[in-house]
Structures are given as structure tokens and as C-alpha cells.
């Protein structure tokens, strides 16, 4: 019988353990999401993150070690972003027809996202470095990190805040949009993509294909606009 400590040390050397754990945690999250009848509060990302965070804590594993295994899953964000081209292509006639409403939704959604997060956080006395990490929180992670670096934020903190924003947006979107009586799938998807980037887009695809396509466009357009708005807003409102 081999020493369990030896086996554990073997497992911590390679990506196998944490890659498997990431997939299993996601499957549990996804099963819970289906089991609850696709309730938005049972968000698969949130459940998987909680399971994995607890596992890391129990096994005293640091995030670096975890990420060495999980980076293969993380890498797939790139190809998945490219894959958004297909629903966009399939919905192109509808997208062209909705150019003006999309422009309005983009300017308002993006502007409100950046300005309100800076003002509220300042109200709580949050300092400049964290404000700079918060300002691009509605854009997709790689873009947000690039923006935060340019305006004096912390890249890894930005990634965490972006994730919190996406998960919260994905959870709140359905009840919020129902309460506002927004019955247009295009508007529902687009506003969630602008405010809650890829995780909001993933949620939109779970609900409706049109909403998902418009969410993907909202996410892409907001990545460009926030790169322009965030530095300006931080200069004038960031104190």
C-alpha cells in the first residue's frame, strides 16, 4: 500500500486533479441549475466557484497551483468568444434593423455602469486604486484587465470584481427585467451583455437564442466603449 502523502504529492504536481475538479464542480453547478428549473439564483458559475474555493481551503492549496490545472478550461474563453460570431451572423438581419436601439442601449448602459460604480464606491470611501479596478467591471475580463492597468488599478483584483459583476448580473437580470416589463428579447439580452459581459451572455443563451446573440454583441461593443469612458470618468469623478 502506497503512502497517501506520496499520491497527494503526485497529484499536486500535474494539472489532472484541478482540471478534473473544475469540470466536476461545474457539472454539479449545472445539475443544480437544471434541478431548480433553471432558476437564475442557482447560477452554475457561482456554485462551481464556491465548491472549488471550499476545496482549495480544505486542502490548503493556493490559487497559483489550482490555476496551473484549470488554465486549460480558462484558455477556452478565447475560442468561445470567437464562436459568438455564429449567433451574430445568424441574427445579422435583425441586428441591422436594431442599430439605433442598440446604440441607445449601449451609450446609456455603458455610461451608467461606469459612472454609478465610481460614485457609489466613492460614497463608501473606497480609494483610488480600487476605484480604478472597479471602473471597467462591466467589460469582459481580458479587456477590463487591460483598461484597469492603464488607469492605475490592480489586474487580479479587477478580474475578481469583473466575475462578481457577471455573476450578480446573471442572477438579477431575469427578475429585474420582468419587474420593468421589458418584453423584447433583443433589449433583454443586449442590456445584460453590456452590464454583465460574458457571464451575463452565458445566462442569456440559457434563456433564449436571440437574447444570447444580442448579449454577445452588447458585450463586444461595450468592451470598446468602456476603454474610452472609464479613464475619462475616473479622471472627473474619481477624486
Amino acid at each position, binding site marked *: 500500500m502506497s503512502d497517501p502523502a506520496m499520491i497527494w504529492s503526485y497529484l499536486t504536481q500535474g494539472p489532472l486533479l484541478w482540471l478534473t475538479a473544475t469540470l466536476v464542480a461545474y457539472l454539479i453547478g449545472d445539475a443544480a441549475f437544471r434541478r431548480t428549473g433553471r432558476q437564475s439564483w442557482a447560477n452554475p458559475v457561482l456554485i462551481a466557484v464556491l465548491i472549488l474555493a471550499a476545496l482549495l481551503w480544505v486542502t490548503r492549496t493556493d490559487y497559483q497551483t489550482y490555476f496551473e490545472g484549470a488554465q486549460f478550461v480558462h484558455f477556452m474563453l478565447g475560442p468561445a468568444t470567437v464562436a459568438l460570431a455564429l449567433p451574430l451572423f445568424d441574427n445579422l438581419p435583425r441586428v441591422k434593423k436594431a442599430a439605433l436601439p442598440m446604440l441607445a442601449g449601449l451609450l446609456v448602459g455603458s455610461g451608467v455602469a461606469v459612472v454609478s460604480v465610481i460614485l457609489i464606491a466613492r460614497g463608501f470611501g473606497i480609494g483610488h486604486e480600487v476605484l480604478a479596478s472597479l471602473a471597467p467591471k462591466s467589460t469582459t475580463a481580458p479587456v477590463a484587465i487591460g483598461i484597469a492597468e492603464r488607469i492605475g488599478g490592480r489586474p487580479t483584483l479587477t478580474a475578481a470584481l469583473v466575475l462578481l459583476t457577471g455573476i450578480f448580473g446573471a442572477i438579477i*437580470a431575469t427578475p429585474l427585467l420582468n419587474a420593468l416589463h421589458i418584453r423584447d428579447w433583443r433589449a433583454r439580452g443586449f442590456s445584460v451583455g453590456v452590464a454583465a459581459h460574458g457571464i451575463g451572455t452565458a445566462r442569456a443563451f440559457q434563456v433564449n437564442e436571440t437574447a444570447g446573440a444580442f448579449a454577445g454583441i452588447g458585450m463586444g461593443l461595450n468592451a470598446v466603449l468602456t476603454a474610452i469612458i472609464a479613464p475619462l470618468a475616473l479622471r472627473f469623478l474619481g477624486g
Partner: protein
Amino acid sequence: MIGALAIILGYQLVGEVSSRALNLPLPGPVVGLCLLVACCLARPALADRLRPVTQGLLAHLSLFFVPAGVGIVAHMDLLREEGLGLVVAIAGSTVLAIGAGALAFTTVARLTGSTAPEDEKPDV
């Protein structure tokens, strides 16, 4: 399937290289997305070839955010210190942005007459 995946990775690769070479404000995968839409317009058969793989990827888009999400554990100290402010700022700002964005979209859609057909609307 491998062929389709190679094509998708190829678009990402070209996107990354051109984003860096031309100093574009867009990240590589978004440039790849734009290029792929343009090529699908020129050759619709390309879209049919890729569709099974892209549908598979997008059905599990949530999975790909999990590793970055676990990164929150590395910032527990700050979340404990400034947690309330950060949570209120993120939650408040996200609610305002989704609500304002959706209302701006539907208002302009009504004004310009580009409303969605009735049968495509959710029951709320």
C-alpha cells in the same frame, strides 16, 4: 470537429496577432469574432461547417469563467475590509446599468418603429 476547432483557433490567432500588431483597443478574440462574421458573410458554407462546434462551445460558456472566478479567493482580505462598499457598488451599478440600458433600447425601438415581432417575446 477537430477541423472546425482548428478554424476557430486560427481566427483567434489572426485576431491576437492583428490586435497586437495594429495596437487595436479590441482584444484578439473579439477581432477574431469580427473576422469570422465577415468571412461567413462572404462564404455562408463556412457557418454551416462551424455551427455544431460553436453551439457546443456556447452551450457551456459558463464553464470557461470558473477558473478566473475562483481567483476571488486570492482577494479575501480586501473583500473583508471593503466588502460592503464593493458589494453595494457592484450590485447597485449592475441593476442601474441593466435597467437603464434595456429601457433606452426599448424606448428608441418604439420611436424608430423597430420593435420585435409579438411571437418572439417572453411571457412575463
